[in-house]
């Protein structure tokens, strides 16, 4: 019993995957930013390379190696330890940027982890997208709004390289520095966005209030008319901090910021970003059983 559509299928799939690696290969670069262990990066725009922050152990004397064997000096434009991304500018790179996948990664989708850990060509491993989620708190103290997780093996030197789909488009940027023991990637759309901010500002603006807090349950009788079941009890207010200046007091229970409700620390962290930093925003607290609103100018963390 021969059925050409069936017997050929494995070969077709095999060819497509090799094609995908071949397609991404020119945009895949080796990044020299630490001693002995090179990492990977991907050309995502004209003369710009996205890579992982943790593989750059120095700010200067960074170089890249291209698919056609050129070693070029790279300038560090910006880095964001929280999402483990960094952007390099390479003058005269002249390489067609990699394509971002048209839609977000789906759980179960086939994916290839690719890297250029040596001068012996692109390397790859096969897996599926195991999870798509977020926000998640990372090992380096930041919040990642979205992440993709894979079971493809991250060989040494793969950090900073892309996770691609079977057409060679980028699903995410691989990192092993964010969560211990699992291989995750920063989704392409998020990585491209972060890279845009990094090229403009050099870093991602993250705000702070200057309080220590603890999540507490709110019994129905003490919710002061709000629906949420928990809030953040302020247990310390740093002297001279944005919170102190705005009039936040020890014992206040934080329940909202800028119109969004806050039920735990992660909610608060997720809100202290972007253009809220440096701006006065309304902060809702339960004080003495009643809801009050104070204005706090969110400080910028250095």
């Amino acid at each position, binding site marked *: 019993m021969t059925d050409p*559509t*069936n*017997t*050929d*299928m*494995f*070969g077709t*799939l*095999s*060819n497509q*995957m*090799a*094609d*995908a*690696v*071949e397609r991404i290969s020119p945009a895949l670069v080796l990044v020299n930013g630490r001693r002995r262990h090179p990492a990977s990066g991907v050309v995502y725009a004209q003369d710009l390379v996205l890579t992982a922050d943790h593989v750059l152990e120095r700010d200067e004397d960074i170089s890249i190696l291209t698919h056609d064997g050129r070693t070029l000096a790279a300038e560090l434009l910006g880095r964001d330890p929280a999402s483990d991304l960094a952007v390099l500018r390479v003058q005269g790179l002249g390489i067609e940027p990699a394509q971002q996948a048209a839609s977000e990664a789906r759980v179960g989708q086939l994916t*290839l982890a690719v890297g250029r850990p*040596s001068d*012996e*060509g*692109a*390397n*790859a*491993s*096969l897996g599926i997208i195991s999870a798509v989620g977020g926000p998640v708190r990372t090992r380096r103290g930041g919040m990642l709004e979205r992440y993709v997780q894979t079971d*493809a*093996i991250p*060989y040494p030197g793969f950090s900073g390289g892309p996770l691609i789909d079977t057409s060679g488009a980028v699903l995410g940027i691989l990192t092993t520095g964010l969560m211990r023991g699992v291989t995750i990637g920063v989704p392409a759309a998020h990585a491209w966005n972060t890279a845009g901010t990094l090229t403009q500002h050099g870093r991602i603006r993250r705000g702070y209030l200057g309080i220590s807090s603890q999540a507490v349950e709110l019994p129905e009788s003490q919710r002061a008319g709000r629906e949420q079941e928990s809030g953040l009890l302020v247990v310390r207010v740093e002297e001279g901090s944005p919170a102190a200046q705005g009039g936040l007091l020890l014992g206040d229970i934080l329940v909202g910021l800028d119109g969004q409700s806050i039920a735990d620390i992660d909610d608060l962290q997720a809100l202290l970003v972007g253009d809220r930093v440096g701006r006065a925003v309304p902060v809702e607290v339960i004080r003495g059983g009643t809801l009050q609103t104070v204005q706090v100018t969110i400080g910028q963390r250095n």
Partner: protein
Amino acid sequence: MEAPVLEVPAYVLSDAVSTAIARMVDRVRPSVVQVHSGRRGAGTGVIWDADGLVLTNYHVVAEKGGRLQVGLTDGRTFEAQVIDQEPKLDLAVLKIPASGLPAAPAADSARLRVGEMVVAVGHPWGQRWVVTVGIVGGLGSVRVPWNGHEAQYIRSDVVLAPGNSGGPLLNARGEVVGINSMIFGGDLSVSIPSQVVTKWLAGLEERRARRESRQQQAEEFAPRPRVAHGWRRRRFGWR
């Protein structure tokens, strides 16, 4: 709101791929053999020609003195002889007294591409004819730590375990592109490219002739007393 309409494709691609892999493996399985060497566990081998040449790793047959046996899928077992071996390449070629055997087709490993799908068949932990699938992860050369030689390799993410050694790495068409050998291992799987194998096998006759003439010469002179090397081999042997 209307429920989204599920589009059902005419055929399911993943089923077609699964069927294709299963058929390919069915075709190749008879070419994959078990290699038993003395007290050691089983390794894997691949039938290289119909007249009984079987290829495996050097480290599978390295122990001297034990009986070497080759087991086929049809249940037959043959006593095997080592015809030639090369520790530097981790290759050995055996001969079994049989003919009309299902030889595995070989492909040129020089045409392999990173990302291509590969299949390993072998006996990990003594479990028979186990199939694992992955892709070619990288191609290149590596310096072997203990002899300083450059060895060419195919690395892949197919799962290999002790017992897989000496078995074939197949491409999607079911042709042998490498011999699985984990000795440079770690968390990645390493195979010896078929190119290296065929080049080594091409010199088989020449090496045999050279050995025979050396033996003749040796017989003409008085034999030298032998030095016992047993402890040494055990200490530095393959593990």
